[in-house]
């Protein structure tokens, strides 16, 4: 990892840039690193770099909020981490799988099998039942061809899906069609789908953005509680600063494709946040 503290001292970074967290520095739980990037770069075209050298390290069990204004590269970073988007440079290591541009087929399979992903919109199959949508969470696993419908899924998967639904308080909706639920309920189903196979890492891209404030808060509380309860590492993006501070252990801010701030949530001040969003 480049010495950003040195860069700050030598004037390469502006003075108000706060040095990123170093492994073990603020996170004192002693857990192993589950996700790390080194000089990660992403360009959609040469004139508009989206990520400009991201160095990030996240330890197992941490809950990390990724914040930044629109176009700062948050969603792109999340998608680069699990190989949905190809990287333009640098290196990503996720759960001992290290890759530069894209993970190879085996790495991609292993990474995605151990990762849950929740999108801003719930992305459920609207014509299928809630239970089938949660069973879909097993699709990436071994012999998962039976996972496309709860009707033919193995009994163990149906039970796991029902348990995941009960964790988000929706077990009584199991056989309703997904599009019959409210937006908040659908997002809770998406969380159940992401959690059904107990991933080691959960990535969420603005999971509360399309919800009203009350539902959004409920969803974030649920995320936070379940990840803590099951020891799942959580990396989420948010535009809601209250959510970012309250439901994470650590806040990482991106500005113009670079890490602008990286510190424990409790230490993040309003001034830090304002500077993050100042052009």
């Amino acid at each position, binding site marked *: 990892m480049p010495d950003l503290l040195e860069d700050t001292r030598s004037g390469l970074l502006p003075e108000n840039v706060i040095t990123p967290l170093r492994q073990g520095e603020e996170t004192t739980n002693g857990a192993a690193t589950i996700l790390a990037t080194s000089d990660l770069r992403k360009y959609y075209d040469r004139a508009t770099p989206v990520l400009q050298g991201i160095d990030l390290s996240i330890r197992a069990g941490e809950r990390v909020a990724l914040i930044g204004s629109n176009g700062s590269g948050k969603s792109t970073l999340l998608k680069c981490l*699990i190989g*949905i988007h190809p990287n333009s440079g640098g290196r990503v290591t996720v759960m001992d799988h290290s890759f530069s541009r894209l993970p190879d087929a085996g790495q*991609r*399979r292993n*990474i*995605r*099998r151990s*990762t*849950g*992903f929740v*999108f801003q*919109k719930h*992305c*459920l*199959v*609207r*014509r*299928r039942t809630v239970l089938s949508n949660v069973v*879909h*969470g097993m*699709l*990436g*696993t071994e012999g*998962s*061809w039976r*996972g*496309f*419908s709860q009707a033919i899924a193995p009994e163990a998967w149906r039970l796991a899906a029902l348990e995941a639904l009960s964790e988000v308080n929706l077990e009584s909706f199991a056989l309703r069609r997904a599009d019959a639920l409210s937006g908040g309920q659908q997002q809770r189903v*998406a969380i159940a*789908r*992401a959690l059904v196979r107990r991933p080691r890492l959960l990535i969420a891209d603005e999971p509360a953005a399309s919800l009203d404030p009350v539902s959004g808060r409920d969803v974030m509380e649920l995320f936070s509680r379940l990840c803590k309860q099951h020891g799942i590492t959580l990396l989420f993006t948010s535009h809601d600063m209250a959510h970012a501070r309250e439901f994470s252990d650590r806040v990482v801010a991106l500005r113009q494709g670079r890490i602008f701030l990286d510190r424990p949530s409790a230490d993040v001040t309003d001034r830090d946040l304002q500077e993050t969003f100042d052009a």
Partner: protein
Amino acid sequence: MPEARDTLMPGRWSGFSPVTFILLVAAGGLILSSMQSVAPSPKQLVDGVPGMVSLVDRMLPPNTDPAFLKRIGLRIVETFQIALVGAAVGVLLSLPVGWLAARGITPFGRGGYLVKAFVSLLRTVPDLVWALLFVATVGLGAVAGTMTIIVDTVGFCGRFFAEAMEDSDKEPQEALSAIGASRMSILFGAILPDAAPSLINTSLFALEKAVRSSVVLGLVGAGGIGQELKVAFDLFQYKNASMIILAIFVIVLVMEYVTDRLRASLQ
């Protein structure tokens, strides 16, 4: 400020370029010149009326002889069997064909265009031509008719299935891909459920189309009620022909009613 407003007012014919105008005039000229070559003249229409009246007179009343009706009934059952089996097998074959042809979904990448071209070939060759080919290869009868309907249905459904899959909601597909689902899992888990109403609708249209096609396939010896119709006209048995036409009308009407009801229940 009328002057300022005039300058802001968009033209009434904006977007109607000289090229568009020339193309419209050319298309109109083509239609008119074609009408002169192939459309019936008023004189021809008037001259044809006595012949038509005479034909209708010889067709009435339709033949209601029980033995004939029994023979027609069996042929109608055969026609329906050709349509049903042909459409069912054609729809089943169209699912993988549509998947392989669907842009952005096919595992063949740009090779999907070749599958689309193949489906276009099946669709553009008329069903009577396919029937002639199958009669020549497997002989006269219902089997040739069924094979014709299968090919015709793949040509029809293959295209619309591919389009329905292309238009299916991309977000669930992305979500399943993000958790490591395979192409097949995404197909069965996200694409087919989302495209299902469109697929069923297209399949019902295919069945309707198959019934209409199977009626005329007999004209070239590919089985079904059309074979009886051809014999009736060839032997100038117009009362038999009118009964067959009536029977065809009834089965097409019943089929349209049933498929309309099924489509309505899907809404």
